[in-house]
């Protein structure tokens, strides 16, 4: 059974994305996939894939600090890795061949126009070559979206990413967040009880979610809506969790809310939250937006 986790960036705070990164220590290599519309062709000025060599113990988070780029993309290091650079004529699929004990793969999908990107991390138990299109050997795939995907590209993005997986045995979970001010409710106690988690699931989902279902008249929009629509139409079991929070920046309480999302997922064990040192490595706090009082 293949689990795909999509972590959406819905706001600059990104608590959903940060939480997922903490709980999935993985390592691998980074590839590029052409995410653009089918009638566009790769140009010679396209960014090449980069590989950062290094290794770390499995207990530590996978994050390599010098990989955090301006777009907020987090990439991973591999102990020994070789990248097959993607040929411009090949769109959509990529082949990664790892060497040595490179057991995990990552796939980065980059939107060159808007600098939004996402990384897909996979855990596999097989050494040697790995074909993204053939997800037979993977158990969990983590897809991390660090930029905003435009409305007119959300459908194509979803088709491209989810279309790469075999539908049999596939199950999708989406984590996203939203300000509590956008939550419509007759009961005003909701703002005092934030952060809270709500979810929606497709018809074929057999998950018994541990959090309440989203009620009318609230809706999901954005990439989580695109993913859930795709799964509903193609009868893929999927659950989307949205955390409504009044916090501006990510904090441990908001991130702790997402624990409920993993209680009903089979093999994944939720450990205690990491220490402040590890948080400091990749969460930017006190980020000065204005130069008025410097």
């Amino acid at each position: 059974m293949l689990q795909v986790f999509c972590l959406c960036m819905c706001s600059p705070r990104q608590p959903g994305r940060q939480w997922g990164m903490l709980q999935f220590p993985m390592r691998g290599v980074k590839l590029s996939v052409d995410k653009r519309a089918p009638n566009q062709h790769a140009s010679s000025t396209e960014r090449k894939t980069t590989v950062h060599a290094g290794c770390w113990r499995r207990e530590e988070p996978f994050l390599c600090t010098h990989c955090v780029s301006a777009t907020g993309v987090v990439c991973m290091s591999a102990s020994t890795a070789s990248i097959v650079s993607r040929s411009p004529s090949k769109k959509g699929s990529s082949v990664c061949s790892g060497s040595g004990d490179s057991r995990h793969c990552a796939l980065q999908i980059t939107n060159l126009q808007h600098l939004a990107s996402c990384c897909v991390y996979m855990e596999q138990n097989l050494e040697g070559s790995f074909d993204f299109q053939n997800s037979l050997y993977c158990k969990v795939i983590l897809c991390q979206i660090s930029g905003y995907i435009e409305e007119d590209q959300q459908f194509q993005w979803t088709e491209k990413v989810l279309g790469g997986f075999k539908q049999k045995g596939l199950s999708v979970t989406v984590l996203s967040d939203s300000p509590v001010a956008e939550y419509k409710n007759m009961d005003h106690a909701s703002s005092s009880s934030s952060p809270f988690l709500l979810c929606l699931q497709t018809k074929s989902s057999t998950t018994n979610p541990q959090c309440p279902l989203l009620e009318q008249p609230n809706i999901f929009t954005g990439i989580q809506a695109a993913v859930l629509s795709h799964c509903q139409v193609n009868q893929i079991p999927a659950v989307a969790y949205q955390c409504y929070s009044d916090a501006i920046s990510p904090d441990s309480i908001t991130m702790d809310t997402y624990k409920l999302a993993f209680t009903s997922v089979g093999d994944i064990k939720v450990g205690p939250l990491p220490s402040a040192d590890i948080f400091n490595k990749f969460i930017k706090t006190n980020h000065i937006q204005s130069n008025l009082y410097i």
Partner: protein
Amino acid sequence: MFIPVEATPPSFKGFTLILPAIAVGNVAQLAVDLIVSTLSMKRVGYMHTDCLVPMVGPNPYATSAEDAGEIHTTAEVYTDAEKKLAVLQIRSPLIQSRSKKFRKLLVSWIKASEFSRTVVLSSSHAYQRDDQQLKGTPLRYLVTPAMRTASGPALTELGWMEMERLSPFPGLVEAVPRLSIPGGGVTKGLFTDGCQEELCLAVVLVFCSEGDNVPDAFTLVNHLNEWLLLVDNDVRAQKWKVPGSWRLLFGSSHPPSIF
């Protein structure tokens, strides 16, 4: 494109299709909500396309806790087999660069499904009415030549007003009057495509402004009911059932703790 819910696709042959245009005040979409909710129509398929902005939500027509959690997507098709009625509901805006593609998709689906007639509900900006349009009823209709042959006399008998062709430059005698539906979205395009493809298509629209458009939706759906007789046309009875998704249309009220 159309994806059925069940393994065997439903047959729409001989059905009447009602679809909304995304237009001023979303009146047509509200009217379609009333039709689906009142007739308790069953969902038979999705219109899965990249032409619309994606959205999902819980069941807007839920009547009990069991079906409240069922998710509904951007564009879905509902049917009432007894009345031979099919309804396409569209819940999010059209992506501007793909509006022509969406029209083509709809026209080819209508032709392939062999609907007996199609009714497009729409609205138009009230502030752009001509002097003559300011008088009388704010409701208008348009029919393709194929529909005029089929239902033209019935609409004339009902006393409905056909949409006027207006001069683009009022006062200029030489200017040729043309059809103009400002704020109607794809309505004019769909109507023109319907004429070209010889579809049996009618447009029913209301002049309105942005704001609380619930009364406009009731006006439109009551007017449509005079022709299609979807529900009992008794003036005294509460004909239409408001769906649960219409709660808090303008957001939650203020939290009391701010005072």
